[in-house]
């Protein structure tokens, strides 16, 4: 026994390293509790001691908005310029999809189409490099030619020279449109007819996925038209169409950069981690403060939100290219640039396209939520219906969002599979090879001509809708009748759960001093990841307590998430096990998971409201379907990845099916399952923020309240608070899982 050093240090050392974790947690918690009786500030952090980071951030944004200047121009002018630039492609897309426009207004679109066609043709006959030069040349000439016009429009938009008449300074590239304008006597051109878009999507669906997909796509898209939601759908779709290329290109570029430069990796990776843990809602606040409300701020928030998945996929894609392929490229004499563009990126095309799929889905989810800051379209309509409790309308609109998500998801996934299947085709004629694209142009031409004579081709008129407002009202009545008849059964359950489990739990969380949580967290972090992890988790903890200064809100968030988590795991793990046991079940379950993952998170509020109205149970109920998916998936995958030999050994050792599960499969799969739980927590956190719409009094509500008042500090810090909770959970579980995996020898 070591008697020479009986000091405190020796005792603490022994306590930290030798005792079992639960005992350590208990001791740390009790010690902190005792201390907190003595010192009030360790119980509740006094308001006046809080570091006023919130107001610093608010001041910073106010200063940026009002006073900051780059010398020649102010920050405000810079943000306005960015808005103006981003607004242009949005305007063009909207003109094409639902607004229509005068011929000269279609001009930019016309030149872009010409550029794109030239690019595709030159890519076929020469190569990509040459095609890019041609496209750059065409667009460059047009841009230079119309530069005076563009600059004057911009100065007008910035209100520097409002008296200017930019149209007086037209370039050569604009002449054809003005001739057309004169010929058509300034009448408006219509947008692309709905029939053309529906059938066009169908033809594309047939090309990438055969008849089955084509029919699904046409049916889903038709729903948007026959319910009278076409225009709103196209508003939403416009935002998606404009946001996706930005997110995808910036994400691709960032991803490439991270793999190229160690320094970039060091800076960007933690930022992505933070971004991934930050809920959708939090992105909206700073954007609104800087750019105001409306379509363009929604666009900006969407682009920022949807970009990290693309960057992540790009990094993954580049890192997983087999070394033989990279080396063969180098030995073929590629320059670094040739290696990237001709070898690495094309050979990882499938991963990149799946990244694009994620970008599209995230974009749609964000565009829907961005209705909170004035994005038009389906989300806006749905939000309105929800606020008015018009559940019939909300169901119709929610359905539209769901179907749109399904269409986009299925089409891009099928495209990713098709594009990377690489099968040669023997002797096909030009027409065979271009049947689909030809079909699309044919449909476009016919429907445009038809739309000149028949208004319904362009957009269904109100009286030809299959479902309209009256049907929605009927639906509303049905839903209300059903929920009304159910409420007698639901209410007792709801009230019982709320009064006897939820509220006591919440009160318990609220009554625990923050220092107790901090002490327990410190012990757990130290055991799992040493001082580094402890420093990180305690730093984030203190950020919540000291800088955000609203520990109560954070515990409410924690309470929602932990309550939902218990249910998610209770459902997810058994379902995952069941799926792993039977291929047939797996098929159904995975299909369900795919579906649930496709839907924008906003949608999950709808059934929750229908069943439970507002309240805490509704919030938890809204989180569950969204957040259960990873618990199911990771359990399933974890069990499936167990080597067959292990299971065969267990069986020959005489295990019954249950013994096999409890004694062999679950212990081996548990690290993987915990990673699923981790994902569940992250998704639950994201969803909790959104449930602010139905009244959760937590950090999400704080963001939601910050939106209309444009209180940047309040919103940003609340967002950071949620992100902090997420990162703490993520790091702890990650550390545990990798320790466990190492112990099982499964690295």
């Amino acid at each position, binding site marked *: 026994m070591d008697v020479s050093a009986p000091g405190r240090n020796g005792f603490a050392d022994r306590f930290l390293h030798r005792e079992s974790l639960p005992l350590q947690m208990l001791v740390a918690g009790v010690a902190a509790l005792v201390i907190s009786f003595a010192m009030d500030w360790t119980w509740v952090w006094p308001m006046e001691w809080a570091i006023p980071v919130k107001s610093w951030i608010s001041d910073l944004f106010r200063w940026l908005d009002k006073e900051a200047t780059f010398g020649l121009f102010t920050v405000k002018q810079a943000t306005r310029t960015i808005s103006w630039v981003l607004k242009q492609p949005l305007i063009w897309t909207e003109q094409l999809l639902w607004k229509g426009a005068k011929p000269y207004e279609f001009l930019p679109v016309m030149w872009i189409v010409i550029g794109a066609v030239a690019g595709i043709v030159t890519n076929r006959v020469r190569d990509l490099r040459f095609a890019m030069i041609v496209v750059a040349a065409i667009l460059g000439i047009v841009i230079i030619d119309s530069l005076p016009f563009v600059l004057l429009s911009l100065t007008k938009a910035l209100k520097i020279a409002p008296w200017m008449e930019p149209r007086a300074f037209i370039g050569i590239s604009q002449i054809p449109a003005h001739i057309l304008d004169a010929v058509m006597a300034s009448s408006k051109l219509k947008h692309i007819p709905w029939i053309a878009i529906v059938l066009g999507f169908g033809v594309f669906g047939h090309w990438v996925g055969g008849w089955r997909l084509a029919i699904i796509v046409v049916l889903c898209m038709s729903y948007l038209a026959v319910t009278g939601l076409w225009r709103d759908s196209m508003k939403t779709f416009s935002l998606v169409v404009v946001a996706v290329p930005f997110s995808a290109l910036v994400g691709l570029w960032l991803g490439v950069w991270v793999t190229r430069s160690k320094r970039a990796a060091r800076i960007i990776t933690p930022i992505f981690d933070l971004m991934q843990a930050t809920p959708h809602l939090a992105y909206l606040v700073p954007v609104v403060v800087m750019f105001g409300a409306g379509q363009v701020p929604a666009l900006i928030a969407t682009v920022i939100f949807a970009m990290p998945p693309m960057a992540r996929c790009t990094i993954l894609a580049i890192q997983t290219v087999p070394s033989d*392929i990279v080396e*063969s490229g180098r*030995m*073929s*004499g590629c320059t670094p640039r040739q290696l990237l563009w001709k070898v690495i990126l094309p*050979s990882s095309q499938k991963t990149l396209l799946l990244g694009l799929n994620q970008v599209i889905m995230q974009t749609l989810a964000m565009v829907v939520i961005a209705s909170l800051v004035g994005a038009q379209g389906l989300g806006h309509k749905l939000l309105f219906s929800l606020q008015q409790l018009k559940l019939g309308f909300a169901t119709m609109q929610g359905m539209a969002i769901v179907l749109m998500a399904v269409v986009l998801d299925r089409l891009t996934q099928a495209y990713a599979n098709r594009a990377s299947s690489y099968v040669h085709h023997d002797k096909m004629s030009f027409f065979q090879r271009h049947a689909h694209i030809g079909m699309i142009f044919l449909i476009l031409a016919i429907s445009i001509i038809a739309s000149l004579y028949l208004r319904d081709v362009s957009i269904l008129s109100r009286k030809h809708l299959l479902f309209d407002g009256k049907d929605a009202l009927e639906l509303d009545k049905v839903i209300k009748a059903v929920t009304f008849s159910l409420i007698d059964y639901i209410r007792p359950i709801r009230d019982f759960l709320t009064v006897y489990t939820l509220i006591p739990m919440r009160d318990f969380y609220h009554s625990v001093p923050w220092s107790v949580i901090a002490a327990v967290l410190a012990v757990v972090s130290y055991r799992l990841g040493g001082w580094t992890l402890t420093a990180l988790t305690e730093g984030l903890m203190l950020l919540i307590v000291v800088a955000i200064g609203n520990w109560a809100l954070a515990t409410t968030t924690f309470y929602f998430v932990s309550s939902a988590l218990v249910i998610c795991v209770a459902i997810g793990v058994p379902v995952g096990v069941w799926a792993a046991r039977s291929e047939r079940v797996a098929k159904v379950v995975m299909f369900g998971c795919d579906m649930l993952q496709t839907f924008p998170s906003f949608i999950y509020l709808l059934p929750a409201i229908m069943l439970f109205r507002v309240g805490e149970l509704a919030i938890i109920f809204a989180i569950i379907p969204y957040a259960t998916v990873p618990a199911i998936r990771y359990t399933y995958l974890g069990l499936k990845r167990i080597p067959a030999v292990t299971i065969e050994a267990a069986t020959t050792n005489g295990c019954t099916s249950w013994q096999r599960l409890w004694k062999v499969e679950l212990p081996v799969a548990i690290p993987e399952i915990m990673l699923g739980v981790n994902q569940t927590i992250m998704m639950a956190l994201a969803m909790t923020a959104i449930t602010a719409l139905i009244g959760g009094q937590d950090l999400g509500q704080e963001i939601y309240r910050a939106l209309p008042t444009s209180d940047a500090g309040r919103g940003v810090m609340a967002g950071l608070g949620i992100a902090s909770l997420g990162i703490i959970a993520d790091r702890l579980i990650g550390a545990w899982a990798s320790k466990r995996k190492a112990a099982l020898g499964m690295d």
Partner: protein
Amino acid sequence: MQQEIQITCRNIWKVFGPNPEEFMERHKGNPSPEAFKAEGYIGAVQDVSFDVYAGEILIIMGLSGSGKSTIIRCITRLNDPTRGQMEYEGKDLLRATAQELIELRRHKMGMVFQNFGLLPHRDVLSNVAFPLEVQGIDLATRNARAKEMVDLVGLGGRENYFPRELSGGQQQRVGIARSLAVEPDVWFLDEPFSALDPLIRAEMQDEFIRLQRMLKKTIVFITHDFEEATKLADRIGIMKDGRMVQLDTAEELVLNPADDYVAEFARNAPRDRIVSVGAIMEKLQDETGSTENGISAKAKIGEVAEQVLNSPAPVPVIGEEGNILGMLSRERITKALFGKEDR
């Protein structure tokens, strides 16, 4: 062999770890195995020196992890050696700029990879034409050249197939065609046939011999298969734990292994096809005697085994000028065929 030297390697080291330069510096350019272990560094290649002669087939072999793949990657500069000198046709390879290296790879070097390294998004023709494409050669010329190569490796008619539509053997034919498309002077093959089934491997080895008879390249070939090495090589270098243990002809490796490790490798070698009569005969002092029923000194012992074993007396061995060089007895050929140890 009095031949022109194409590639020279002197004291090559390749060390993997956090800071190899500093590690080598600290251990004065010669770290001990204990130092590697203690500090978590890996000495993939340690103090390796050899020459590659123009027109020869040099095979480097060893078990996995012996550093054979790393040394070929050092010569091609896919990996940069930590220490050492390398010359290619008298030019310092390690001082070559990035641009010079690209030029070297575009015109002088070709390489075949174990897992083929084909570009999945390109068809056969465009894979083979790829090295020409990156040089900026126009489409018609490079396709014509690629077509020639595809025909050469016997894949004519499959120009439009994608790699995933081909069998392993066919894919490696594409890899070979691609590596030959630029008419390289040196041809590097990194375990080209290891990923293939045994039957196809034998077929591809014959194909390789056929191609080499036509093209007469300088070849550096990596394998872990001693039989493959003896079938194809002029000289064989055996590597162990990053060091070149012995570099010699197959016959020398079998008859005079440098250490137990080499002997172990050579134990299962097809001696009948490796060892020649001249190497094991009993030399005659005066070189006189009957040449009746004599056998050539250059013949492999497998070819003459039946005759020698059936003959009661030692068989005369005849040199190139028809003179007698020595005698080969039953005992000697038996010992050569079945190894040194007594049974």
